[in-house]
């Protein structure tokens, strides 16, 4: 029980939040406060478990280790930032914070999964609230985004489930950490198609290139705080569980899947960033940028060494912080009710550098971190990925990272260029208002991004401890 306390706190908070909505409808925003406190408490509780001895619980289907705790902290950060970005926005509906917390609960479950049952339940618990959240704005675009997300989500879950069924048939167990011991007498004709279907199902969720088409539409149509959760939280969940399944269950066959995933990753980075180039809608640009970043994350899995696992784990935090910073800027520019109906475009940024220098600085830090400029967290993350690719003796991956970064640089500089245009100030920049919750999010994101870029050693230390999760098979 002690080990699942963060999950229990979040689940309890969600139930309490529902009760508050029904029981005390007069106090608006009570559920938001309850869930904010619950997510913070879960984060503190998970942090106190940091020195836990790694072990398997719940009949070997969940692992308690530093890796899972680090994932918990990351997704809680995504959840808290989402709650703050939607703070006091009553047009999302009272149930908004509860659904966010349930989605975060699914991501937390994915972090510790060592059996296919929590993988499936985690992915579904993550997705189902997001379908509702995507449609929570009651507009044509919101409905369309939710419908596309739902259909693609159900389709990819179907592929994932059938793959799981084949893996179960090949090995007679759902606990994937036990697969290496069984692989020698598993039924190979079921094992390989099963693995292929599972990987395809998860890469759909992660938006790797042949399966990426749904991302920009869903990102553009969903409300901005929800897009923030999708861009940060679901990427963490999907990348983490893909690494766990492949690195624990199939490390014997790493030479086969490593190279294939590496080529997909390089393709994803280049295609995602190329498609980001002509975008004028900021959220759509971030959608394509998210595809590109999924490619960077996949490199960490494809190299299949401990440096790769560490680099991917490291990369998630600067990526998430930069995404939070940029989404916060979009959210502040959108303003109050009705402001979201028209997406924030590049022309809306006109004159921001002179009229709103602080907001412009936030956007600059976020975009430069996405692009991987030195002194931001994104640079350090990309540096470690290149290092991991070279350690794995795959110089092709390293070249792919560099090319992808260069293409991305051009895409991320366009908003900055729009911001520095001198001819007039856009309506949105002039009428924009700071909100207290927005300031908190922005300060944390900017300080974090620059802090990781300037002084990465503490985070490197934490990550190298957390990604050292090979205790399950060796000992």
């Amino acid at each position, binding site marked *: 029980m002690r080990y699942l306390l963060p999950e229990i706190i979040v689940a309890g908070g969600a139930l309490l939040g529902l009760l508050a909505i029904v029981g005390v409808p007069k106090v608006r925003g009570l559920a938001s406060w309850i869930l904010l406190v619950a997510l913070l408490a879960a984060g503190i509780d998970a942090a106190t478990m940091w020195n836990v001895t790694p072990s398997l619980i719940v009949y070997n289907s969940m692992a308690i280790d530093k890796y899972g705790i680090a994932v918990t902290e990351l997704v809680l950060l995504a959840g808290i930032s989402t709650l703050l970005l939607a703070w006091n926005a009553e047009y999302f509906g009272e149930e908004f914070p509860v659904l966010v917390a349930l989605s975060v609960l699914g991501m937390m479950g994915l972090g510790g999964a060592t059996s*296919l*049952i929590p993988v*499936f*339940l985690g992915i*579904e618990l993550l997705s*189902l609230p997001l*379908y*509702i959240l995507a*449609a929570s704005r*009651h507009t*044509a*675009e919101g*409905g*369309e*985004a*939710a*419908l*596309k997300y*739902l*259909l693609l989500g*159900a*389709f990819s*879950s*179907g*592929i994932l*489930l*059938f793959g*799981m*069924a*084949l893996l*179960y*048939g090949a090995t*007679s*167990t*759902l606990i994937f950490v036990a697969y290496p011991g069984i692989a020698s007498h598993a039924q190979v004709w079921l094992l390989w198609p099963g693995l292929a279907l599972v990987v395809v199902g998860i890469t759909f969720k992660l938006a790797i290139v042949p399966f990426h088409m749904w991302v*920009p*539409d869903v990102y*553009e*149509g969903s409300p901005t705080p929800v897009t923030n959760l999708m861009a940060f939280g679901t990427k963490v969940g999907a990348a983490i569980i893909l690494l766990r399944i492949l690195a624990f269950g199939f490390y014997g066959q790493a030479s086969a899947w490593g190279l294939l995933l590496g080529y997909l990753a390089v393709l994803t980075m280049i295609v995602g960033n190329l498609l980001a180039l002509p*975008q004028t*809608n900021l959220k*759509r640009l971030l959608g394509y940028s998210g595809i590109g970043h999924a490619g960077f994350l996949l490199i960490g899995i494809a190299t299949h060494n401990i440096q790769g696992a560490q680099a991917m784990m490291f990369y998630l935090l600067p990526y998430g912080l930069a995404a939070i910073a940029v989404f916060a800027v979009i959210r502040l520019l959108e303003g109050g009710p009705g402001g979201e109906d028209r997406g924030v475009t590049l022309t809306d940024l006109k004159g921001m550098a002179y009229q709103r220098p602080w907001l412009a600085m936030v956007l600059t830090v976020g975009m430069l971190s996405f692009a991987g400029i030195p002194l931001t967290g994104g640079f350090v993350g990309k540096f470690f990925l290149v290092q991991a690719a070279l350690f794995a003796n795959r110089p092709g991956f390293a070249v792919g990272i560099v090319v992808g970064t260069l293409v991305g640089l051009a895409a991320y500089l366009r908003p900055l260029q729009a911001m520095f245009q001198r001819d007039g100030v856009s309506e949105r920049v002039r009428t924009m208002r700071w909100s207290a919750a927005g300031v908190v999010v922005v300060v944390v994101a900017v300080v974090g991004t620059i802090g990781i870029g300037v002084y990465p050693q503490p985070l490197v230390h934490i990550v190298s401890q957390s990604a050292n999760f090979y205790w399950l098979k060796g000992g």
Partner: protein
Amino acid sequence: MMINYVVALAALLFMIGAVGVLVRKNPLIMFMSAEMMWNAAALAFIAFARNYHDVTGQVMAFLIIATAAAEVGIGLAIMVAVYHRRHRLDIDEISHLKG
């Protein structure tokens, strides 16, 4: 052996579902086809569970059924919301977002 026939049937259902999602235009039919893929997986789980005399496969089948029910509830609500705006359901016409 019986298991091969059952798994072959599950694979056939899975293929029909996947093709249905890819070629049909009506979101309702596409959603139905996706649910068919889920149920094909549940069938395969049950077949393997019986073959191995192992209960976890059956547990998984129950979880699939329960989750599918939740997903259908949400999915139909979203489709009703979209239908209210357009009074027609065709995935090619629901294309406001592009680029």
